């Protein structure tokens, strides 16, 4: 399965990157291909291309705030979670993506 994800939080110095790290690690364990875009204090990093988005089975948005450039995901299957859900139980977040 292919997932593209966006992580963001209000301050953008901690949770954005922690959630990205947690997702990447869990995905590699569960044989899920994932690309994570971080919207943090340094702006947008590891930006998702339109090709990435088109190829992905699911778009995962892990954020406590409104993310930037959400319009590009119109038409994709989107799953939204809070940062807390990712930090509490990342594997259940991934299995919910799978069940979509």
């Amino acid at each position, binding site marked *: 399965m292919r997932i593209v994800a966006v992580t963001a939080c209000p*301050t953008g110095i*901690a949770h954005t990157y922690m959630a990205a790290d947690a997702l990447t690690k869990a995905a590699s364990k569960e044989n899920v291909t994932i690309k994570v875009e971080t919207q943090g*204090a340094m702006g947008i990093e590891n930006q998702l291309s339109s090709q990435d988005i088109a190829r992905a089975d699911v778009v995962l948005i892990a954020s*406590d705030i409104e993310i930037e450039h959400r319009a590009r995901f119109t038409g994709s299957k989107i799953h939204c979670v809070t940062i807390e859900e990712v930090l*509490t139980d990342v594997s259940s977040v991934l299995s919910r993506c799978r069940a979509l």
Partner: protein
Amino acid sequence: MIERRITFILPQDGFVSWKLNRLKTLGAMFRSVIMLVNVTQMQRANAEQTLQVMALGSREYDLCQLHIEGSDAELACMVMTDFVAEQFTLVNTAHKSNVKTNIALLKQLPTFQLPYTLNFEFKRTILPKEKSDILALISRMLAPQSVVSMYDALLEREAVSSTAIGNQIALPHVVSSLVDTPSLAVIQLPSPLDWQSKLGEVTMVIALALPKPIERPMLQSFTCLTKSLLNPEQCQLLTSSREPEAIKALLIHRLAQPFFPTE
């Protein structure tokens, strides 16, 4: 059960076998179990299992700890402190001879070297407090000149979502012009405190404040620290530490890690 810890830095030859043999011989004199933790690589081995220790793949400047646990830990710690001070670079020890050690003197070593000045504050509260009291205390530690504004900034962040990150740690953080140097304020609590999160109560609060605008090295540094807190073992090392200097060493080492020579 008594537990004592010694924190130290590895010299160029890492754990050479003759030092490991000395360690094993010394360890065998006590009933305590002695664990060797390579903090940098987050791996551990029983100090009596020389092969296991060698398999840790330790390198120069790695931050390590001895965890001595047992009824005679106090005595073993005294003996081990002398051995570590002779053979490695001693950072901190639970033993009383602690006065000799000071991280400030070691900050030019890559283990602790930061490309910016860091303001570090530590407090241990004696009486149980509320979350708001702790945030107020943090505000005073981070920004003594503008306590109220800092308090509001921290509160505003907590209102969006709780900054508890699980494993008994909370991580309040702000980016603000209220500070002009990157600051880290750590509070160790006497009992678990409700941080209004499903991730459970907290016993340690690690607060970060970064000046505006953020520079990339600072962000790299702080995200290395925050990412390390995803590892339950790292969190446990921090929350179970007794000495402020050991906690400081663990945290500053993570901040320094992105700038650590890899080979």
